[in-house]
């Protein structure tokens, strides 16, 4: 790790200002990605801006069919939240399956989506539930937020403050564990909402995506059998020693069927 300045702003405005004043600033949330990357010297920011004392980034609120989760909310808090469990059980379930207890107690939703790891779990929920990412300067629709592998629509210094999830009629997330990292080798989030059925896939490709083949089939019948043996195009999917594109495509169908079966 290279030397850096450590800053701990006490408000949203101070955090954004700290970034502006820094030569090469980086926000620090749970540090579960950022610290290892800095230790490996793959990132060496001049200023590390710790978001842990920023009150505007905290808390979970359910209001008028919207579950708003502050960016600094840990995976463990989301998993344990009675409000989330009641409103969107699939989201609490997803959070409870991220990493291990250590990771869940440090890692945050803001950090996870800002990082947009191709195998991360949260992006599937954000896209699957058509959430809105709220930042210090605007509101970004899920469809526009994740732009590619580790890529997001966030501008230089833009800070995620919360994520707003509309409550669905029914939803579920199914994850097939990567045998080594236990991220998602493939993860599928399905949701039946007032505006239609959505199916988001993570892990399988370079970036989370909506699988229209699944959505069409599930729009016809929202039932496991509708997608169980469905043909998923493997041509844009990832291939590595843990799973070929073909295998990942197959898993998308299997997991979608399981998710539909348990959706509530």
């Amino acid at each position, binding site marked *: 790790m290279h*030397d850096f300045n450590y800053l701990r702003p006490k408000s949203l405005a101070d955090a954004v200002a700290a970034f502006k004043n820094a030569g090469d600033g980086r926000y620090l949330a749970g540090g579960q990605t950022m610290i290892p990357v800095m230790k490996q*010297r793959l990132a060496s920011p001049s200023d590390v801006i710790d978001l842990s004392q920023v009150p505007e980034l905290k808390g979970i609120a359910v209001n008028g069919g919207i579950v708003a989760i502050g960016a600094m909310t840990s995976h463990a808090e989301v998993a344990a939240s009675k409000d989330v469990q009641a409103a969107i059980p699939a989201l609490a379930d997803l959070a409870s399956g991220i990493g291990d207890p250590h990771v869940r107690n440090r890692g945050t939703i803001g950090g996870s989506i800002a990082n947009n790891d191709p195998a991360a779990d949260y992006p599937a929920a954000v896209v699957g539930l058509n959430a809105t990412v709220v930042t210090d300067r605007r509101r970004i629709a899920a469809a526009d937020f994740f732009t590619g592998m580790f890529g997001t629509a966030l501008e230089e210094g833009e800070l995620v403050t919360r994520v707003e999830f509309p409550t669905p009629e029914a939803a579920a997330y199914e994850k097939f564990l990567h045998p*080594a990292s236990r991220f998602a080798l493939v993860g599928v989030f399905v949701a039946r909402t007032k505006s239609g059925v959505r199916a988001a896939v993570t892990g399988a490709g370079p970036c989370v995506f909506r699988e229209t083949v699944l959505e069409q089939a599930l729009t016809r019948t929202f039932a496991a059998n509708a997608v169980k043996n469905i043909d998923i195009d493997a041509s844009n999917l990832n291939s*590595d020693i843990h799973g070929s594109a073909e295998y990942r495509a197959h898993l998308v169908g299997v997991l979608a069927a399981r998710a539909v079966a348990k959706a509530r």
Partner: protein
Amino acid sequence: MLKPHIGDSVLRHEDARFLTGRGTYVDDITLPNQAFAAVLRSPHAHARINGIDASAALAISGVLLVVTGEDWLKQGFGPIPTKSAVNKKRDGSPLNEPPRHCLAIGKARHVGEAVALVVAESHAAALNALDAIDVDYEALPAVTDARKALEPGALLVWDDIPGNFCLDFELGDKAATEASLKASDHVVELDVVNNRVTAVPIEPRGAIASYDAKTDCYTLYNATQNVHANRDTFAEKVLHVPKEKIHHIAPDVGGGFGVKNGVYPEPALLMYASRKLGRPVKWINTRSESFVSDSHGRNQMSKVRLGINKDGKFQALYTETIGDLGAFCWTVGPFTPTGGSARTQGGPYAFKAMYYCSKAAFTNTMPMDPYRGAGRPEASFQIERIVECAARKLGFDPVELRRKNLIPPTSLPLKTAMGLDVDCGDFPQVFERTLALSDRAGYAKRVEESRRKGWLRGFAIAPYMECTGGGPKEFAGVRFQKDGSVELAVGSQSTGMGHETSMPQILAARLGIDFESIKYRQGDTEATPLGGGHGGSRNLELGGNAVHQAASEVIEKGRKLAAHQFDTDEAKVQFEDGHFFVPGTNQTMTMREAIEASFDPSKLPEGMAPGGLDANTTYERGVISIPNGCHAAEVEVGPETGVVRMVGYWVVDDFGTIINPLLCDGQVMGGTAQGIGQALLEVAHYDPESGQMVTGSLTDYALPRADTMPPMTIEYYEGAPTKKNPLGVKGAGEAGCCGAPPAVVNAVLDALKDYGVTHIDMPLTPEKVWRAIRAAR
């Protein structure tokens, strides 16, 4: 006050220290004025090094020293030789051994090979220096597959070693085996691969070297499993100093499994750097570096042929293996695919004839050294796979076929066709007990329950027979102190197995003294004059018997002292249960009293000095012993995804006398976990094009975790303590790795038998299982 017996599950004495973070590993040691080293490692699998420019690195503030291969050679330091017990080719000529210098000379031959050492005031400055060293690499094509390396025209890892060929080897009667195969009703043939793995100990390798100019001596703290032998190599072969000049200490070591047995370059580099700089130098390997600089294991490709008659009786076994050595012979690398895998061929089954031959090849990969079992797990996997394959092909019940061919106790002792001296044991009884434990009666119901949940259930049983190994001598020293404490120093070494418990337990049990009064010392060239360290399941067999022998010597001396006190003839004094006594009299004296008396000059017999009960002894092994046992596994396979779950596991082991069942269970569980890892998850995978290690981090190298493990039932068969050593022990450390891979793989194949799946190479990843199902459908 704790007075344990042999066979008691004494709780691990070391655990309070380990579990509360009070262990002392190398990285916990800080010497005054220490500097920090880091190693520049080759990013290429194969590259010519046209030059190294360290000027920018040396210009960084705090950077003290950069050592390159050229600098190293200029010092006149020698290469690290291999000590493989098999060191000749079949034609009698010596094996082809490339020079293994501590730093790459002229060329780098695997990703991770040490190219330069930097030393700096701080760890951070050392890392900055690494970034600043400019190495002019000319990348060359690499060969990473041993089979390809041996093909004619393969590119060469070493210009002067034709065909990448290190050595070949054979054991057994080739003509008789061929004749027996020919005469057999059936010959079943199978290609078996033992996948390349690495141990990933929790504590990475690391060392601190400190040179003292006043005495011209080095102190080396090192995360090693073998202080004596490795010191000798550093002193005599590399640095060319008398071995007495190196005080080699292994403090607490956090796991080894074989990868810390060998001689690595870094400690020698540190000793040189410390001398040059006049201050201690510390280095700790990172996890990422460990994957490409800790030795790897297994990676054997074998063709196995089994001759079997219509009645199911095995006739002959013929195994041909290609073993990968990586880029060097490393410490004992060539032994594993040769002698190490040959000796236990055929497992616990009776054969008329057996033949084993192998070739070992160099590749542009991290070199091989022992990994838990070092050849015996490979052999066990080979025989159990071919037996399962024969059962399926020829329509035998796999359990019945095994039962029919186990060596009966009435045949013991016997020498196998591989020359292994099997003295005692009861393979059929161990086998039947394992079967009984596994509740075969309830199996059909469990299969049905799994089926209802959408899972396929499979079962397999895998009897195994292996052998011990490692250094043939061990030292134990017992020193009594006036204050009542006892120091026990042994030359074998724990890297977490619990010697601090089992060894004092033996001493306390023999002498009838307080377990808590014993201070244990190990892993220190000044604590014992010799020591065989760790490896080959040798601790109880060598170290344990050395302690036993030392205790006997203490008792002999105590009898003299007691006779003097009782004013009687020494021959009349007996010792039992911690008491010296003369039968038929009321004369008695506890060991504790004898020890106290030994410090009172007025109570000593003629010729005994104060503290005269001390014993220093060396135990020497005659013949290696034969641990054996049986594993049985039940698995569930999800046909939709190919995922495998371990759902039941039963083990009965014959390790001879069990000193401490709790510690023994730990060995069996750990070995089984690593065996399950190899079977289902682990592979040190190299990209064939680039020669990069694809699974070079824990996000890609899949280790078994607690939730991978099934519930386990472990029992021991103690009806056959070996007479090869006084304690009657057979070695327990590596057995789990012998039984688990075949039990798991065969159980998965059993689950898939209705699909007609007969073979999948380890590791049985979900995708491979899914593909096998799909191909068979």
